[in-house]
């Protein structure tokens, strides 16, 4: 069932606010990864403000759902979301990548509440998520583990080791989003190291595979609900996204995989985002 129109608008507004904060904090830090943060933010927004059971006041609460950002370079998207949710003051976003900051270039669980595992080296977060899902099941807990991998990240062999294991151990408490923005640092994924047919590959690995438009809040919500109803196997939600989504000159741009916008570009980005109303394409 689609979510009510008002709730949909709320989530779109939260994602839009996060988008502005992502671009702003990366501009201030003068380095970071805007492209993959903007492609991931709608999914992360839905997870923290709609789907996941969690309590920002109790980041260590045993019965919380977990989110692992395996593509750790999208840290600004996670930071913007965690700050808005109340894990730490929004003002801290301005300290991204500065000496002594809790907001490291890639997430550090020892510094920042709400980070479930430190990530950054690709292909590792998903293996940790498999361990989390096993640990929770061992304790007969019903909480779920969510994870997000990048599409380029799927070139790491360990992603497929984790894929094999999650199916082998029948981890239906694990849902992974694959942020399919089709770009990596050196260019289009299909030119650098072809990934397709991605959905067929994950199906062949025994996963429940759902393909969605990854900026459509309704589709994200529905996919998560479908994953919850799937038993005996993990779910891979391939979210077709646009790198840099919402900022005209960043959309589909390889340059903004790992480059900060200038002050002028920031102003232009804010203008774009003032007009941008979320998901409908």
């Amino acid at each position, binding site marked *: 069932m689609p979510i009510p129109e008002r709730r949909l608008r709320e989530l779109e507004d939260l994602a839009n606010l996060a988008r502005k904060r992502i671009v702003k904090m990366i501009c201030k830090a003068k380095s970071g990864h805007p492209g993959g943060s903007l492609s991931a933010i709608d999914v992360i927004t839905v997870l923290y403000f709609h789907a996941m059971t969690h309590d920002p006041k109790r980041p260590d609460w045993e019965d919380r759902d977990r989110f692992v950002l395996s593509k750790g370079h999208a840290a600004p998207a996670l930071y913007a979301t965690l700050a808005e949710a109340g894990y730490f003051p929004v003002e801290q976003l301005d300290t991204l990548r500065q000496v002594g900051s809790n907001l490291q270039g890639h997430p550090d669980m*020892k510094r920042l509440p709400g980070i479930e595992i430190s990530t950054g080296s690709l292909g*590792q977060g998903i293996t*940790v998520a*498999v361990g989390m899902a*096993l640990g929770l099941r*061992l304790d007969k807990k019903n909480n779920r583990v969510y994870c997000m991998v990048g599409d380029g990240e799927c070139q790491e062999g360990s992603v497929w*080791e984790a894929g094999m294991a999650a199916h082998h151990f029948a981890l239906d408490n694990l849902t992974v989003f694959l942020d399919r923005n089709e770009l990596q640092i050196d260019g289009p994924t299909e030119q650098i190291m072809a990934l397709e047919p991605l959905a067929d590959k994950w199906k062949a690995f025994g996963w429940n595979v759902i393909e969605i438009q990854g900026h459509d809040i309704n589709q994200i919500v529905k996919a998560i609900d479908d994953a919850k109803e799937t038993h005996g196997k993990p779910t891979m939600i391939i979210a077709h996204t646009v790198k840099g989504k919402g900022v005209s000159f960043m959309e589909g741009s390889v340059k903004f995989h790992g480059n900060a916008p200038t002050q002028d570009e920031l102003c232009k980005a804010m203008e774009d985002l003032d007009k941008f109303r979320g998901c409908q394409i």
Partner: protein
Amino acid sequence: MSKEDFSEVKPPWKMSVNNRDAFGQTLLELGRENTNIVALNADLSGSTKTSVFAKEFPKRFFNVGIAEQNMMGMAAGLATTGKIAVPSTFAVFATGRVYDFIRQSIAYPKLNVKIVATHAGVTVGGDGASHQITEDISLMRSLPNMRVVVPADAIETDRSFRTVVKEPGPFYFRIGRSATPVILPNEYEFRLGQAYELRDGKDITLIACGVMVPQALWAAEMLKKHGIDARVLNMSTIKPIDKEAIARAAKETKAIISCEEHSIIGGLGSAIAEQLVQIKAVPMRFVGTRDCFGQSGEAEDLMCAMNLTAKDIALEAEELLKK
């Protein structure tokens, strides 16, 4: 002086026991006491002796197949849910193969993962250099948050592993493949970060770890016949290293020899030297592998071929003191 001059001395031990069996048994016993302990393996559960744990606790044992990277990541994930995760495989795969997973997902977040590496060093034997890692201590020792323990015999394997499991945070626990002489008393108590003096002496200190501890003890017997009084320290905790024991050795004896079944680059010897140069240094020599790969052969023959025997230690001591 040559190695032959030390030939008549008999080894100072009665029996040998496999450290892997001791580890397997201790893991099983700890598993009975603590339901939070989970074990992981990568298709080598028989060799690492985690199979005994697997048999009694199948739900707390995860064989990931031949996928060591995933094993380390899963261990980290299990640790985040409150488990004490014990991944184990051969040392060569438990370190070099998965170094970045240990670095990023275990050491950096300081998770409660106890990496048990078996088949370390050249005593792996017949499998050859591909399976004989002699740089694992170096790799693990240089990692922030990681502590490194190399037990000498079956008694210490048991005692030290209990401490490793009790002490929160990541550990690298290194044992070999072959049966090892039992040299510690049954009442031995392991203290993390403290060297154990097996024998006092005033002329020279032999500081050893792992399978080289019995060799050092034997070397001390050989040296005794030649009028040299050697102290023998079992430095089973490589990190944090026992600075005081090294300082005492430098103060009370005239020279130090490190003895390890590991490269002289980055291992126990390096850890000792790093401390020694900061205090009143005494002459030091290193017994270990010399920047080379191993080869196939029987464990004992390889120890001889790579100059890792009691005689090699004794000869180094003689020469060092003669200087």
